[in-house]
C-alpha cells in the first residue's frame, strides 16, 4: 500500500506498521480507513488516556463512570441522572449553525442511549472578541444552531457560559452538555453480547456526510485541512428517534444500544463488540442509504446524524420494527453478534473487511507525549503587580467591567433558547446554576458549566482546580450539594510539549479538586488540536457539574429581592490582580501568580453555606468570579440597591481583585446572629458587608466612599451590552 494513503487518513508510518502487525497481513483500503478513524485522537484518546487515568471516578453516588456513552449518578428514590459533555468545535468553526446544532443532537443521543430521558441541555461557548465581525457571525450562528436544534426537539436549554478572548479567534469552542433522568432499572449500555443476536441500524438513512469527521476533529484548522462534507441535523428525526429508543429500552428487548457519533457505524459497532468481548458481522448492502452507489468505505465512515445501533434479543426484531414504525422510523437488521472477536464486513456476501475488534479499541496506540514547561509560565508568574493602581474612578471601572461581553448578562443568548419547555425549570438561565425539579419527588437537580481559561493559561494546575471550584460554588449558590462532574478538555496540539504540559497540569488540578470536593469524574470528552495557524486556544478544561437539592423549597436566589437583607462575605476580603478581568482590561496584561487554593477551607465554606441554607438562615447567595466583589454586588443588586462598608483593605484589590472560594450571601436581619454563630462553628471567615437599601449601590472601603452608582445606570448596561453589539 502506498504510504500516501494512510498518511492522508492521518495515520503515522509507525501506526501503519502496528496495524500490519496486528492484522498479520497487509490491510486493504477499507480496513485502513477503519483503523484511521478508530485510532484518531477523537475516538482512541491515544494521547490523553494516560493522563485521564488520574481522575477520581468512584464514589457511592456513581452508578456509571467513564467508558460508557454517559456517566450516571444516583439521586435516591431509585432515580438517577445521566449526563455528559462533548465538543463540536471544528464543525462549528466551518459552519456555525449546523456545527452547533449537530453538537446538541450528538450529546442528546449519548444521554438517551443510556435509557435516560433528556431533561436539559447546557452549552459552554468560547469565541474571539466581538469587536471582530467574524466572531459575531460565529456567535450568532452557533446560538441559532443550538436554539434551532434544542428548541425543536423540545428539551430546555437551561444554562451554560460564554467567554470572549482573542485566543479563540478562528477556533471557537462549542461544548454541549446534556442531562437526563432515569430509573435505575432502565440503565442501558453500549454492549453487543449474545451470539446470534441481531444488529440493527435505526433512525436516519446513511448519507455521504461527515466522512472522516473524527479525523478532522483531530487535526489543526488550516488552509489545507479539507473539511469533510458538513453534517446537517434533523431535530425532528432525533425527537422521534429518542421517543422510539426510550420506549424500546423500557420494553426490555434491548441487549445493547449505542448512538452513531464520530466515526459512525465503525465506532459504534466496534466499541459495542469490544465492551461485550464479542464480534460483529454486518452485511453493508442492508444499511439503508440516502444516496445511491455508496461504497462500503463511505457507509462505514459516514457521520450522518440521528442514527443508532441496537442489539436486541434474538427473536424480538419484529417488536423493534414495530416500535420504530409507530414513530415513522425504519429499523433494519444489518448483521449479528458473533463470538470470534472480529469485526467482519460483507458487501453482497463478499468479504470486504475483517479486523480483530480489540485491535481497533484496546490495542490502539497509547502515546506518552513529552511534556515541557513553556517559557511564558515563569515569566508571567513572576510579573510584578504590586505597583498597579486603580486607573480610573471605581464607578467607571465597574461600569466598564459590567458591560464587557464576558461579564455582561447573557440574556441575548438565552432568550433564543426555550429554557422552560417541560415546565420544570425552577432556576432559569441567568442564575449561578440552573435548577430543575424532579417531578414526583421533592427533589431538584442543579447544573452548571464553568472554566476561566485565563487562570488555566497562567497556571494550568491551579486553573484546573479553580474550574472545578467555580462549578462547585455555582452549584452551592443555588442551594444544591455538588455530586459529580463531566468534562470537556479543549487544548491545542498535544504533540507540542508545552501544550501537553498544559494538558497534564490542568488535568492534575481537576483531579485534585474533584478528590477534595468529592465530585468524581463520570465521563467527558477530549478535544485537542484547537489551533489556528499555529496559535493554540487558551487551555480550556470545561467542567460540567451537577448537584442535588433534597428539598425544592431550599432553592437559593442569586439576587437581592427586598430591602433590609444583611449582606455577608464568606472568605477573604481582598482578591488578587493576577489573572483578573481588571488587569486584562485596564492594563492589557494577563499575568501574575495565582495563589494555590486551600481546598479543605473551600469545602468548609461550601458546607457552611449548605448548612446555613438548610437551617433557613439564607435568602440569597452569589459567588465572586470574574470582575471581583464589586461586579458580584452589582449583579446581586439589579433589583434593589445596597450600602456596603468594608472596614479595611486595598481599594483595588477589595473591589476588583479575584480569588475563588469567596461567596456573598444574604440573610434576613433576625437570622444574622445565628448565621454569625454558625460561621464560628465552621471556623470560616465571615464579614458583614452591609444591607440592601434604596436604588443605589454604595461601597465604602477603609472609611473611604469609593462608589455610588444608581442601579438605573448599571442595570441597562449589564442587560443590553451583548445585544447592542450583536444587533447594531
Amino acid at each position, binding site marked *: 500500500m502506498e504510504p500516501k494513503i494512510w498518511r492522508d487518513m492521518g495515520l503515522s508510518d509507525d501506526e501503519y506498521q502496528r496495524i500490519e502487525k496486528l492484522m498479520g497481513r497487509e490491510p486493504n483500503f477499507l480496513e485502513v480507513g477503519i483503523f484511521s478513524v478508530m485510532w484518531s485522537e477523537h475516538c482512541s484518546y491515544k494521547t490523553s488516556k494516560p493522563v485521564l487515568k488520574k481522575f477520581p471516578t468512584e464514589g457511592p453516588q456513581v452508578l456509571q463512570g467513564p467508558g460508557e456513552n454517559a456517566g450516571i449518578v444516583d439521586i435516591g428514590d431509585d432515580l438517577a441522572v445521566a449526563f455528559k459533555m462533548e465538543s463540536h468545535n471544528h464543525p462549528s468553526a*466551518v*459552519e456555525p449553525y*449546523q456545527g452547533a446544532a449537530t453538537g446538541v443532537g450528538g450529546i442528546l443521543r449519548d444521554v438517551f442511549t443510556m435509557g435516560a430521558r433528556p431533561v436539559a441541555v447546557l452549552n459552554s461557548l468560547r469565541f474571539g472578541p466581538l469587536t471582530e465581525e467574524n466572531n459575531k457571525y460565529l456567535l450568532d450562528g452557533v446560538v441559532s444552531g443550538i436554539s434551532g436544534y434544542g428548541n425543536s426537539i423540545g428539551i430546555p436549554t437551561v444554562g451554560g457560559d460564554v467567554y470572549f478572548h482573542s485566543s479563540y479567534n478562528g477556533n471557537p469552542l462549542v461544548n454541549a452538555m446534556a442531562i437526563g433522568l432515569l430509573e435505575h432499572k432502565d440503565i442501558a449500555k453500549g454492549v453487543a453480547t449474545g451470539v446470534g443476536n441481531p444488529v440493527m441500524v435505526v433512525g*436516519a438513512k446513511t*448519507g*455521504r*456526510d461527515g466522512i472522516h469527521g473524527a479525523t478532522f476533529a483531530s487535526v489543526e484548522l488550516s488552509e489545507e485541512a479539507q*473539511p469533510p*462534507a*458538513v*453534517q*446537517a*441535523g*434533523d*431535530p*425532528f*428525526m432525533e425527537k422521534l428517534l429518542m421517543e422510539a429508543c426510550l420506549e424500546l429500552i423500557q420494553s426490555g428487548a434491548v441487549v445493547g444500544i449505542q448512538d452513531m457519533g464520530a466515526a459512525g457505524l465503525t465506532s459504534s459497532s466496534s466499541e459495542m463488540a469490544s465492551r461485550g468481548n464479542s464480534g460483529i458481522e454486518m452485511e453493508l448492502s442492508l444499511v439503508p442509504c*440516502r*444516496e445511491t452507489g455508496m461504497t462500503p468505505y463511505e457507509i462505514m465512515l459516514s457521520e*450522518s*446524524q440521528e442514527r443508532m445501533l441496537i442489539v436486541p434479543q434474538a427473536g424480538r426484531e419484529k417488536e423493534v420494527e414495530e416500535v420504530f414504525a409507530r414513530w*415513522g422510523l425504519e429499523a433494519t437488521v444489518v448483521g449479528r453478534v458473533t463470538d470470534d472477536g472480529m469485526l467482519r464486513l460483507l458487501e453482497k456476501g463478499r468479504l470486504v473487511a475483517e479486523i480483530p475488534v480489540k485491535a481497533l479499541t484496546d490495542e490502539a496506540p497509547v502515546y506518552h507525549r513529552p511534556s515541557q514547561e513553556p517559557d511564558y509560565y515563569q515569566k508571567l508568574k513572576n510579573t510584578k503587580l504590586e505597583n498597579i493602581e486603580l486607573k480610573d474612578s471605581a464607578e467607571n471601572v465597574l461600569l466598564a467591567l459590567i458591560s464587557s461581553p464576558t461579564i455582561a448578562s447573557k440574556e441575548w443568548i438565552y432568550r433564543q433558547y426555550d429554557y422552560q419547555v417541560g415546565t420544570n425549570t425552577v432556576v432559569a438561565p441567568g442564575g449561578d446554576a440552573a435548577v430543575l425539579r424532579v417531578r414526583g419527588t421533592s427533589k431538584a437537580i442543579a447544573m452548571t458549566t464553568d472554566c476561566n481559561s485565563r487562570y488555566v493559561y497562567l497556571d494550568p494546575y491551579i486553573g484546573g482546580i479553580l474550574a472545578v471550584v467555580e462549578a462547585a460554588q455555582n452549584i452551592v449558590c443555588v442551594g444544591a450539594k455538588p455530586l459529580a462532574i463531566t468534562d470537556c478538555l479543549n487544548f491545542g496540539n498535544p504533540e507540542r510539549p508545552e501544550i501537553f504540559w498544559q494538558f497534564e497540569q490542568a488535568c492534575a488540578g481537576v483531579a485534585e479538586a474533584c478528590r477534595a470536593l468529592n465530585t468524581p469524574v463520570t465521563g467527558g470528552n477530549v478535544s485537542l488540536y484547537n489551533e489556528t495557524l499555529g496559535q493554540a486556544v487558551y487551555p480550556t478544561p470545561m467542567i460540567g457539574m451537577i448537584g442535588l437539592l433534597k428539598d425544592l423549597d431550599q432553592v437559593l436566589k442569586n439576587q437581592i429581592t427586598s430591602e433590609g437583607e444583611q449582606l455577608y462575605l464568606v472568605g477573604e476580603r481582598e482578591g488578587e490582580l493576577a489573572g483578573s478581568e481588571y488587569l486584562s482590561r485596564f492594563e492589557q496584561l494577563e499575568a501574575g501568580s495565582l495563589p494555590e487554593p486551600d481546598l479543605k477551607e473551600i469545602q468548609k465554606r461550601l458546607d457552611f453555606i449548605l448548612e446555613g441554607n438548610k437551617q433557613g438562615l439564607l435568602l440569597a447567595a452569589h459567588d465572586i468570579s470574574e470582575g471581583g466583589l464589586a461586579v458580584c454586588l452589582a449583579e446581586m443588586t439589579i433589583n434593589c440597591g445596597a450600602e456596603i462598608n468594608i472596614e479595611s483593605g486595598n481599594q483595588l484589590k477589595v473591589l476588583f481583585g479575584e480569588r475563588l472560594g469567596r461567596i456573598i450571601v444574604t440573610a434576613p436581619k433576625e437570622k444574622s446572629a445565628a448565621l454569625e454563630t454558625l460561621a464560628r462553628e465552621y471556623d470560616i471567615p465571615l464579614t458583614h458587608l452591609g444591607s440592601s437599601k434604596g436604588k443605589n449601590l454604595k461601597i465604602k472601603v477603609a472609611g473611604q466612599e469609593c462608589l455610588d452608582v444608581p442601579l438605573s445606570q448599571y442595570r441597562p448596561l449589564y442587560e443590553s451590552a451583548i445585544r447592542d453589539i450583536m444587533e447594531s
Partner: protein
Amino acid sequence: MLKARVKVTLKKSILDPQGSAAEKALKSMQYPVESVRIGKFMEVVLNEDDKDKAEKIMHEICQKLLSNPVIEDYSFELEG
C-alpha cells in the same frame, strides 16, 4: 434597475429534512410523489443598469450572504 431571480438549493449530499417531511406528507396523502427538495427563491432588485456589473454584484452577494457555500449552491437570472 435590474432584477435578479435567485435559486438557492441544498447541495446533493446535504440532508434536507424539510423536503423529506413534505415528501412523506404528500405520500401519505396518496400523491404520486417521488421526492421533494426545498430551497430558497429570492428576488433582488439592484440599483444598477449595467448587466455585467450586476452579474458581478450578484455573485458576490450570493456567496457572501444569500447562500451558504458550505452547504448550498446558487444560480440566478438577470432581467431588465
